[in-house]
């Protein structure tokens, strides 16, 4: 019985974390699907979101759950700016210049954060809800911050999904992702769509960062780790697939926590990465749900 409770506990906490992973992966998958660029700096935008949440909470005494409404548009603009200044120039470039540019951006951002904000671990200040506290449902304890983060992730994911699937701009994004030349022919401004997509991808991962900031440690190199998780998730869900990201995020969260439960918490990420290796070897580029 005890084992069962523990197992359910692990499943539930994996599920909660999984929703956050889904949101992180959505941004990466979207950018890849539409622009065909693998954003190696993805995790660094998560880090940026976390630090923004931290500074809003410390300087303006805004709870991350309120600040998120300011941070999402800010990161959207940051994304558009980075697209215009950097990404646009590599769209027609070689693969290696794409890899190295986004990679250079990631090294630059992580170390800039290190330089400006020191390598110290920080926690955002909470004002609306308590930082700790568990909710007990049938003997299974769920952390309130984790619960809020996962519900928040689902909401942001749903909003992004709505934007992509049901709005005019969203249809233009889909059209560009299917065939950019064709989209150009029917009068879609590809450049704007790319800028919006990049901004949208960055605000998704940034929003995940803000939600994570409510309970996760904030430090300059936090992004490199989440980048790997995001790559694993997107590889599992299929590069470019929105629905795939959602399911794969949950799967990765559950694999991680079950690995921690059955083997050892110390190696749970090794298990995630190995799962990823197996998937990418068996089904490169398409993932489990790609076609």
């Amino acid at each position, binding site marked *: 019985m005890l084992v069962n409770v523990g197992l359910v506990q692990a499943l539930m906490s994996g599920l909660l974390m999984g929703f956050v992973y889904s949101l992180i992966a959505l941004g990466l998958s979207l950018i890849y699907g539409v622009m065909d660029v693998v954003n190696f700096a993805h995790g660094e935008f998560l880090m940026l979101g976390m630090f923004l949440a931290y500074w809003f909470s410390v300087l303006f005494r805004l709870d991350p759950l309120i600040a998120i409404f300011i941070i999402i548009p800010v990161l959207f603009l940051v994304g558009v700016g980075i697209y215009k200044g950097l990404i646009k120039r*590599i769209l027609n*470039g070689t*693969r290696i210049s794409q*890899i*190295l540019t986004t990679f*250079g951006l990631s090294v*630059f951002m992580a170390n800039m954060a290190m330089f400006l904000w020191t*390598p110290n671990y920080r926690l955002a200040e909470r004002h609306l809800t308590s930082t700790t506290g568990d909710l007990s449902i049938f003997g299974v304890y769920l952390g309130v911050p984790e619960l809020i983060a996962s519900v928040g992730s689902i909401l942001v994911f749903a909003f992004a999904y709505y934007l992509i699937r049901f709005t005019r701009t969203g249809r233009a994004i889909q059209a560009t992702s299917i065939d950019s030349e064709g989209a150009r022919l029917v009068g879609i401004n590809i450049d704007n769509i790319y800028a919006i997509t990049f901004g949208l991808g960055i605000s998704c991962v940034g929003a995940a960062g803000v939600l994570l900031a409510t309970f996760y440690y904030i430090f300059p190199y936090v992004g490199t780790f989440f980048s790997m998780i995001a790559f694993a998730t997107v590889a599992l869900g299929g590069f470019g697939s929105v629905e795939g990201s959602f399911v794969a995020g949950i799967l990765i969260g559950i694999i991680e926590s079950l690995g921690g439960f059955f083997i050892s918490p110390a190696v749970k990420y*090794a298990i995630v990465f190995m799962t990823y*290796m197996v998937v990418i070897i068996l089904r490169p580029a398409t993932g489990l749900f790609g076609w």
Partner: protein
Amino acid sequence: MPKISRKTVVTVLLYVGAVVIAPLFSKAPFYRHVLIMVGLYGLLGVAWNIMGGYTGLYSFGQSAFFGIGAYTSTMMLVKAGVSPWIGMLCGGILAAIVAAGVAYPTSRLRGPYFTIASQAFARTFQILMTNWDYVEGAIGIPLPLMPDTWRFMQFKDKIPYHIIIFSLLGIAILVCYYIERSRTGYYFRAIRDSEQVASALGINTVRQRIIAAMLSAFFTAIAGTFYAQYVLYIDPESVTHHALSIEIVMVAAVGGAGTIWGPVLGAAILMPISQYARAALGGAGRGIDLIIYGVIIMVIALVRPTGILGFFQRERTIEGEGGDDVDTTITAGTGSDDAVRGALGQS
């Protein structure tokens, strides 16, 4: 075996001369330390280049092989008192075997997929090393102090280290010269330019990719052993860390991937920047060298993806994911044809 030309002799003499003269400019240990770092990262860059530059496989996971080299020789020394020279060879061979084991299943991956997979492999390796008690896990292993001997590769002075690392680098460069002129080199470049065309011409691309990975891992592991003997303390954080993989790629990409001297040039530019920045700014400037690296690499990737020494112009066909890449290679003419013809002509 290519004939030894006058150019080769002059190059060798210039290299030996530069290596001998360089440490004489200053007796300051720090200056000599920077030189050794140039040699170490030059070796790592040259090793990466065999995979990244010639074969087009951008590995971001070289730190795992560096770690294998450092740990193999150190464990053999600590547990059995075996000379690090033997440990170096064993580490290199072990790394090559592991590389073959990784290269085989990943031989279908290209472009960014290969890059991400190599990163995942190195990170898994780091986590496993951190949690493996036999190798002291996260605590790390201090190497036992020995008297100044060549047998145990430990010296108080920096000059012997200087000689060792630049000899190793010299050997690696010679191997690259040989690869460039040999059939293997043509195979590698054909795979880089278009894997589909290479395979259509009858090149066993999987085997060639494995060979490239093994050679690269071998030299990376040798550098790992050298590092362990030089610093005399290893732990997963220092010898298997992701940042190391990044620096290796930077060194090669900045100098010019796919050229013999590019990675050496890259190390000669980047290492003084990072070492002096760290020394000058200390704890306050943590990360400043990497900020500079990040900017340099972005600028180079945008302005001249070919690196400072210049890359081949026909890099465009590297990814080879779509079916249309056969067209591009053939119409691109000059460049790829050269490699393809070489592979054909010699086979």
